[in-house]
C-alpha cells in the first residue's frame, strides 16, 4: 500500500486549504460541539439542520449552474445501493449519537480540545479495518439489493434538477422561518 504514499503536491495543497476552511467553518458554526449535535436529534437545537440545508441549497445552485454552463465536466454522484445506503445510515445514526460527532466534525472537534472526539477517531479507525474484513460478505449479500447506480432524482424522474432545487430551497426557507419564529418566542421546539 506504500508504493507511492503521497499524492502530488498540488493535490495535497488543495486538500489542505479545503480542510482548513471547512474546519474553520464547522467550529465557528458550533457543529463541532457534542451538545449541539446530540440536541439536533432531540429536536432541541436545530443548528445542524440549518447549517446542512443551507449548504445543500447554496451548493446545489452553484454546482448545477456550473454544470449547465459547462464549467465543470460532471458530477460526482455516489452509487445508489439502497439497502447499503439505508442500512449504513441506520448504523451511522446510532454511532453519531453515541459518539456525538460525525467523522468530519470529530476531526474538527479535536482541534477545539474535545478529547472524547479523539477517542472516537481511534474507534473509527478500528471500525474501518473491521469493515474492510466484512466487506466481501456485504458486497455479495447486501450490495446487490436495490442497486441503481450513480443516479440523481433528476435522472430517475426525467424532471429538470432545477425543480428539485427550487422545491428544496422553498422547503428550507419555510422551515427556517418557522424555526426562527419559535426560537424568538423562546419555545422549546
Amino acid at each position, binding site marked *: *500500500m506504500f508504493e507511492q*504514499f503521497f*499524492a502530488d503536491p498540488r493535490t495535497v495543497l488543495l*486538500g*489542505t486549504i*479545503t480542510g*482548513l476552511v*471547512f474546519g*474553520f*467553518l*464547522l467550529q*465557528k*458554526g*458550533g457543529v463541532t460541539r457534542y451538545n449541539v449535535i446530540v*440536541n*439536533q436529534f432531540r429536536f432541541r437545537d436545530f443548528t445542524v439542520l440549518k447549517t*446542512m*440545508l443551507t*449548504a445543500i*441549497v*447554496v451548493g*446545489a445552485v*452553484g*454546482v448545477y449552474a*456550473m454544470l449547465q454552463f459547462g*464549467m465543470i465536466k460532471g458530477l460526482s454522484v*455516489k452509487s*445508489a445501493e439502497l439497502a447499503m445506503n*439505508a*442500512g*449504513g445510515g*441506520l448504523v*451511522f*445514526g*446510532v*454511532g*453519531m449519537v*453515541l459518539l*456525538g460527532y*460525525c*467523522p*468530519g466534525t470529530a476531526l*474538527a472537534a479535536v*482541534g*477545539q*480540545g474535545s478529547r*472524547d472526539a479523539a477517542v*472516537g477517531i481511534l*474507534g*473509527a479507525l478500528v*471500525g*474501518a*479495518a473491521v469493515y*474492510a474484513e*466484512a*466487506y466481501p460478505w456485504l*458486497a455479495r449479500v447486501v450490495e446487490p439489493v436495490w442497486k441503481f447506480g450513480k443516479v440523481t432524482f*433528476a435522472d*430517475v424522474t426525467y424532471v429538470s434538477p432545477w425543480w428539485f432545487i427550487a422545491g428544496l430551497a422553498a422547503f428550507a426557507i419555510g422551515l427556517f422561518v418557522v424555526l426562527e419564529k419559535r426560537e424568538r418566542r423562546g419555545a*422549546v421546539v
Partner: protein
Amino acid sequence: MVGFLRRPRWSPYVVGIGIGVLSWATFYFMGKALGTSTSFVGAAGSAVCTIAPEHVAENAYYVKEYGAKGGGFKPIFDWQMALDISLVLGAFLAAVLGRTFRAESVPTLWAERFGPSVGKRYAAAFVGGFILIFGARMAGGCTSGHGISGGLQLAVSSWTFFVSMFVSGVVAAAVLFGFGARGAGKGVSHV
C-alpha cells in the same frame, strides 16, 4: 474582518453558505466533492499494511477504495487525507481566534445524563466511533460526502442515507436520553 473572525460563534446560515461556496470551489478547481470518511479506510489500511501487507493487497475493500488501475494502490495521503488532517488545524484556529478552545473530556450534556466518569465517556466514544465508520463505509459516505455533497447533487443514494441516519439518530437519542420534555439535559448549547 478581524472582529468577525474573533466572534465565538457564527450564524448557521453564514456557515452553511460558506460550506456551500466551498463545495463550488472543490468542484470547480479540484473536480472533487467534499468528503471525509474514505481516508479512515486509507489510514486503517496503512496500519494493517505494516503488519500484513499481503492481506491488505488481497482485501476487496482496500482494492475498491484505493486500488490503482494498473495494479497496486493509489496514494493514501491524497486530497481527502490532507483535508481530514487540516480539519483539525482549521478548527483549532477558529477556536483560538474565538476564544472557545477548551480541553474537555466529558461534554456537559453527557455528564448530566451519564455522570462525570471519563472512562465511561471514552468507552462510549470509542464504540460510537467504531459504529459510525462502519455505517459510513456501508452507506458509501458520511454526513459530508453523502449529507452535504451528495445532497446538493440530488443523489438518490445520499438522500436515502440522510433520511435513514436522521431517523436512526432520533430513535437512538430518545433511547439514550429519554423522550420529550422529560428527557435529561436542559439542551443548553454551549459555545
